[in-house]
């Protein structure tokens, strides 16, 4: 391509006080091209993205270097001269934001104003930049919503909280689209989503590039996601560029060791399976015809979250549970540890009916059944230190001696690979991976026999994900754990589980050995398999 670049970034440096988030990034973006920005958590991707729109202003972050936005080739645009985002005055910046450069934020759940209707928010943006009348703005907003696959007729007047995560993500994209910007910066647009929705969104972005010649900067820690959707890729590590090039090039023939690590950490459906850990023959958990129905509530219809599920789990076995969002995985998991009361059916644990336990007896038995929550950040009390949180179960079960407590917690911290100096840290002072380890430590400190892991890795970047998966395997061996491993990522589940249950609409549609995933018969399972993003092969 010969066209002149839209965006030129020269020696971009960003630091937050003593922390250097980015140490001199340079890049050029041409119309219609897509650039992938990858790197593990904390490598400076979001910081860079925010700086492109000048969003670090007034936050105390120091931004150095130049970010030049070039005028539209036709000259019809609003800017005639190249503008340096870093030095532009507020008014110029205001006109550029959204109109020239639009951004989709990493956290779609909170990026919409909860007090205004989604449609109105999109229309408002249109009015702001085009000085359009209310009717025209409304029509354009509706059109943009339809474009991202949201039914404008029924959803225009909805509030953000009435949207699912995927819909909010798409609403944000619609907001960007309504302005027909030249560059879209999409910061992890799919992390929070399950594979099927993720695929939809990536498709949409691709279509837009073709249709309106949008340039795209796609940020992700997932090389597989980036793989099929960008032209060039740039790998960041701790604020430094380690490698860049055409995506196929980089992914198939990585030069830098770090890029190789990233690639290796990606769970693959075709990866070799680790050796099975032997399970004993006696059953530990027996679920018979379990159903959980959430009664209708405030106008919404009753939901059958789990619908007649039966399972048997041997002592020491690991069962993977997959299925798309809302298929009842968490509800099943919570029922097993009795956080959720089943509507009908029976759960036997070590030959005893779980439902018969009450009060004190129930509290005593609880130690055998633990759950590792989907989101480690919310399952650790933000106002208690990690150490206290891990010690708490022991205290509840009668341990009073401070020294012994401390020793136990330190031992456990060490076991999950955390330094015991972290004892007094609060959850927000840890990285995501560290938090997940802490949550695991708390679940294991009572030496449970069965642990349900509810999506323990979906919030983590690939490298951390790989570490946690490895840790779980080791712990299984060491503590003779029986594991229920819930995830929506088939590739991850496959690595941890002996058998895999595929759930759809509350039912187990297929139960396969991990090794036999490819032989899946159920059309739904096949659909899931095909939605997994794959790395391009050389």
């Amino acid at each position: 391509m010969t066209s002149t670049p839209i965006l030129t970034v020269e020696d971009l440096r960003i630091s937050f006080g003593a922390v250097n988030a980015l140490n001199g990034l340079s890049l050029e973006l041409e119309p219609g091209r897509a650039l992938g920005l990858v790197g593990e958590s904390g490598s400076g991707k979001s910081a860079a993205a925010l700086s492109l729109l000048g969003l670090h202003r007034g936050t105390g972050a120091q931004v150095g270097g130049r970010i030049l936005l070039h005028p539209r080739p036709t000259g019809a645009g609003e800017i005639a001269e190249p503008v340096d985002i870093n030095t532009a005055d507020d008014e110029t910046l205001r006109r550029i934001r959204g109109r020239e450069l639009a951004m989709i934020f990493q956290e779609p759940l909170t990026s919409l104003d909860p007090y205004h209707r989604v449609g109105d928010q999109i229309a408002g943006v249109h009015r702001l930049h085009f000085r359009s009348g209310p009717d025209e703005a409304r029509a354009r907003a509706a059109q943009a919503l339809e474009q991202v696959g949201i039914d404008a007729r029924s959803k225009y007047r909805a509030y953000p909280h009435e949207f699912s995560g995927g819909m909010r993500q798409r609403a944000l994209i619609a907001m960007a689209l309504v302005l027909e910007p030249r560059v879209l910066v999409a910061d992890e647009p799919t992390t929070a989503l399950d594979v099927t929705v993720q695929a939809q969104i990536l498709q949409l972005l691709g279509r837009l590039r073709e249709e309106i010649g949008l340039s795209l900067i796609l940020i992700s820690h997932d090389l597989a996601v980036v793989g099929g959707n960008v032209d060039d890729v740039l790998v960041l590590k701790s604020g430094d560029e380690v490698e860049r090039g055409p995506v196929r090039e980089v992914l198939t023939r990585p030069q830098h060791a770090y890029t190789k690590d990233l690639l290796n950490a990606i769970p693959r459906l075709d990866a070799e399976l680790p050796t099975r850990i032997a399970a004993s023959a006696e059953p530990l958990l027996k679920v018979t015809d379990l159903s959980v129905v959430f009664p209708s509530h405030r106008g919404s219809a009753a939901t059958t979250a789990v619908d007649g599920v039966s399972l048997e789990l041997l002592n020491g076995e690991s069962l993977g549970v997959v299925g798309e969002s809302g298929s009842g995985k968490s509800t099943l998991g919570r029922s097993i540890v009795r956080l959720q009361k089943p509507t009908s059916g029976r759960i036997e644990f070590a030959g005893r009916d779980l439902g018969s336990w009450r009060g004190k007896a129930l509290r005593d038995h609880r130690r055998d059944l633990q759950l590792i929550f989907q989101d480690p950040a919310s399952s650790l009390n933000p106002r208690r230190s990690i150490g206290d949180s891990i010690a708490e179960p022991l205290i509840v079960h009668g341990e009073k001696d401070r020294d012994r407590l401390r020793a136990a917690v330190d031992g456990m911290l060490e076991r999950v690979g955390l330094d015991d100096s972290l004892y007094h840290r609060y959850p927000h002072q840890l990285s995501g991976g560290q938090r997940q380890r802490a949550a695991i430590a708390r679940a294991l400190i009572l030496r449970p026999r069965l642990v349900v892991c509810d999506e323990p890795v979906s919030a983590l970047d690939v490298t951390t994900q790989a570490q946690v998966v490895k840790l779980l395997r080791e712990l299984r061996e060491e503590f003779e754990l029986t594991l229920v491993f819930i995830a929506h990522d088939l590739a991850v589940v496959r690595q941890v589980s002996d058998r895999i249950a595929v759930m759809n609409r509350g039912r187990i549609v297929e139960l396969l050995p991990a090794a036999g995933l490819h032989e899946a018969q159920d059309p739904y399972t096949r659909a899931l398999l095909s939605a997994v993003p794959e790395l391009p092969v050389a």
Partner: protein
Amino acid sequence: MTAFLVRRLLAAAAVLLIVAAVVYGLFYLMPGDPASLACGKRCDAAELAQVRQTMGLNRPVYEQFWTFISSIFAGHAYDNGVGTVWCSAPCLGYSFQSDEPVTQLLTQALPVDVSLVAGAAVLWLSLGIGFGLFAAMRPNGLRDKATTFVGLAFGSVPIFILALLLLLLFCVWWQVLPFPTFVPFTQNVGQWAENLLLPWFAIALTFAGNYLRLTRAGVLEALGQDHIRTLRAYGYTERRIVARHAVRGALPTVATIAAMDIGGVLAGAVFTESMFGLPGLGKLMVDSASTIDLPVITGVTLLASFLIIVANTVADLLYAVLDPRVRIS
């Protein structure tokens, strides 16, 4: 929504019944004899007994209570010793000390409090929200600290001191306003407002500080949220962001507290009324408490409770209306 209101109405009725019962209970524990107060300083035993009978005080408490409750719905005929007075429903009893049905006393007093709250609320909301926004524009700056300090200072002065200060300043020293008397709105709007200006300010200044804090905190919290960053990323001006979006985050709380404060003032602004000599519910309450005029005490208390309950219900509704994430149930 209707179900919510119906449920609230039933709950309110129950609450009012309990309040009335508690008032009756307290009344019988209270020292002092309303009959002997009504009878005068030098009243002999026979006379006292007569008075007691006329006032219905010789009947058992529960009977008196029942009469009270039933007359709310059915009205009641009171024998005032000379003839019978018919007190039609909703009859809240008959004050033997002022020889008037309580309902009439209440309807005379209520306009005062309605007038008080009408102006005061407008003032305190505009002062509080206005200065709250002003303070939030540059948090921790000089003007933020100054406005917050002034707001707090006014809020911490007992209202009777503030009222006095206002009287001295405006009526005695500068002589720009008349000493307040209550002129009904229907009689002369101009005089109504002129006379109530000082009471309005007295109430508003004590309250505004709280609204300032709430608005400021709400706006600052909202400004730290992600969706504000979205607005910035789409080119909104900072003023528009604060005035149209950030302030929305503070509104549910502000509106809720405002509804409750309005209920509180409606239910009787005792100090304001007594300092400015306004014949509202608060004054009626204090006066009737000192003469232990049970029917009036009960009537005022019930009306006050009712107003507070209404305000609380409005507060809940407002919260739900202003925060789309909250559903009324």
